[in-house]
């Protein structure tokens, strides 16, 4: 039964793939084109896919485009950190303060004005250790963004798979998956991140031994991932639950589409919007969560540069060197603000009805 079904589904899968769904400008002419939910009519009119419509609307939103550029710049800085370091001629770990005795005074604070900002150290010098603040920040952003992007990808993937599975299969599967989601949502998330960090680290390294950096990075990713996916899952489950009963899905089922095809070609395109919107809201949350963990001293440890740990240092040095907080702080506020604005823009572009 299932075999036959999936074989027929495979046949159906091949023919509409050129005509169907969202990417072509001309409407699908194949017989399967009729089974499409978002089928378009109108011979001479230029058809636009929802994706294209969204893109046109998004391009008109100036705040959104500006924020997207800022975020792109952050991602580029993170990706190109070694190149920046090469051009700038300094790195994140060298103790410039101990190489050049003129940079720090006898208490270990920068001698120059504004935290030692100068032509050779743009953002100043770190108190005590005497590292270059600009390079610390660039590499710190690299660490934090790397972790957060990984967590976001994993979370979105898991959330989507589990949400669609629960919503589409329904019944017993749905019941148990929903109970798992309820259970995981009961964990106080921030506290659990902190509490489970040593446990996850202990899975890789026996306690008492030195923990390598990649283990801490991996543990941070695992801990945030394990408690991050439930929100998206629950949202998608609800949407799929109602989409499942719609006519176009029924039509696909009657024409003999396999379950996999229905999920991939009928359901998934309809939940792309919430997935995208949610992930633009999620990423800054993961960035601040990661920074928070490092700030609290349970995330990334010295000597690996980290955005969050710069705030820990900044708080310690603030009384004597307030400038040290300026650049990491401003960068963080700009980053989170832009991401939130971008999230709103993406939501508006996908769904013009949701006016603010």
């Amino acid at each position: 039964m299932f075999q036959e079904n999936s074989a027929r589904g495979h046949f159906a899968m091949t023919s509409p793939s050129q005509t169907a769904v969202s990417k072509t400008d001309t409407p699908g002419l194949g017989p399967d084109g009729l089974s499409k939910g978002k089928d378009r009519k109108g011979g001479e009119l230029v058809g636009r896919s929802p994706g294209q419509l969204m893109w046109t609307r998004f391009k008109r939103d100036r705040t959104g485009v500006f924020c997207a550029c800022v975020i792109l710049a952050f991602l580029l800085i993170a990706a190109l950190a070694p190149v920046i370091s090469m051009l700038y001629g300094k790195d994140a770990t060298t103790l410039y303060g101990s190489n050049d005795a003129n940079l720090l005074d006898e208490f270990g604070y920068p001698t120059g004005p504004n935290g030692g900002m100068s032509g050779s150290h743009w953002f100043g010098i770190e108190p005590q250790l005497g590292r270059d603040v600009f390079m610390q920040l660039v590499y710190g952003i690299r660490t934090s963004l790397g972790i957060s992007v990984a967590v976001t990808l994993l979370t979105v993937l898991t959330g989507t798979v589990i949400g669609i599975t629960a919503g589409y299969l329904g019944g017993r599967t749905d019941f148990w998956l929903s109970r798992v989601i309820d259970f995981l949502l009961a964990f106080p998330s921030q506290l659990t991140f902190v509490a489970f960090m040593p446990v996850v680290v202990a899975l890789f390294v026996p306690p008492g031994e030195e923990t390598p950096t990649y283990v801490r990075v991996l543990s941070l990713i695992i801990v945030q991932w394990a408690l991050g996916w439930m929100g998206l899952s629950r949202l998608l489950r609800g949407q799929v639950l109602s989409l499942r009963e719609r006519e176009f899905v029924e039509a696909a089922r009657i024409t003999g589409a396999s379950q996999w095809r229905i999920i991939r070609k009928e359901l998934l395109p309809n939940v792309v919007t919430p997935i995208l919107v949610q992930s633009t809201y999620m990423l800054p949350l993961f960035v601040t969560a990661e920074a928070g963990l490092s700030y609290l001293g349970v995330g990334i440890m010295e000597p690996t540069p980290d955005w969050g740990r710069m705030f820990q240092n900044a708080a310690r040095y603030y009384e004597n060197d307030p400038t040290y907080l300026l650049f990491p702080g401003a960068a963080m506020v700009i980053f989170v603000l832009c991401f939130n604005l971008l999230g709103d823009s993406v939501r508006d572009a996908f769904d013009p009805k949701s006016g603010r």
Partner: protein
Amino acid sequence: MLPFLFRRTLGALVILFLLTTFTFFVFFAAGDPAQMSCGKNCTADNIALIHQNLGLDKPITTQYWDFLVGIFTGRNFSVGHCPAPCFGYSFATKQQVWATLLDRLPTTASLAIGGAVVFLTVGLATGLLAAWKRGTFVDKTFTSVSMVLSSAQIYILGPIVMGIFVYSGLLESPRYVDFTSGPAAWGAGLLIPWLVMATIFTAQYTRMSRSTMVEQLQEEHVRTAKAKGMSGRYVFLRYAWRGSLIPIVTILGMDLGSLFGGAMITEYTFQLAGLGRLAITSVTTLDLPMILGVLIFSSALILLFNIIVDATYAFIDPRVRLS
């Protein structure tokens, strides 16, 4: 109402039990718990002592059973008796877990209550004003300021506020004074943490109360009330506001729950010895029984607040009472 509360409490207890079980098994299955409970500077004698006290030579199910029974009846360790709600003994601090939790709770609770009063009043007031003056200069200012402030973090604002008020000598360093020994000192000591914490939350409440209020004003019952000739202000406060409270109560319940479970970043920034600080300290010293205790305690508080929120719905929205 009562059957509803009973059902919710039962559900919460089941979740709490599962959470305790899960956490216990994960904690005590990963690595050597004795080594992990002992802290970083551990002697062989200490490890032997922990082995004997936690009964680590017994199977893990027996250990778990002992732990569960201990919560209700108390336990006897060789280091001493642990009275009724016994969540274990911390070998790093040489304290009973439950006693430490109770010791830290007032700080965290004061922080949460004071902060909530500030962010709720300011947040709701600005949000309502923005919705009332929708589209005007006031609205735009409030909306954009709250957008920027909600992107700031406590660990960024904290040092700045400390710099303005404390390092300059205007105010004393934040500290916790017991409420019974003087409300004025209590408030003065926590003023800065309240304000910093509230700033972040206020921005969220402004945005949320504004948007729910704007939504409510387009509802049919509001239109009907206006059509009947009621004054704008009456409709705004009595009709629209009441409806907009439901989503706010939901979020407030979640926020209060997590704040009572320990405002980690605030407590860490201002060096206040609350539950959140306790969690961080016990994680950095690898104090396993204490981490387990804090986690269970905080989860219980969150679940408790969820129930309170559900009960509050019934008072705000009569439609909920029926179901």
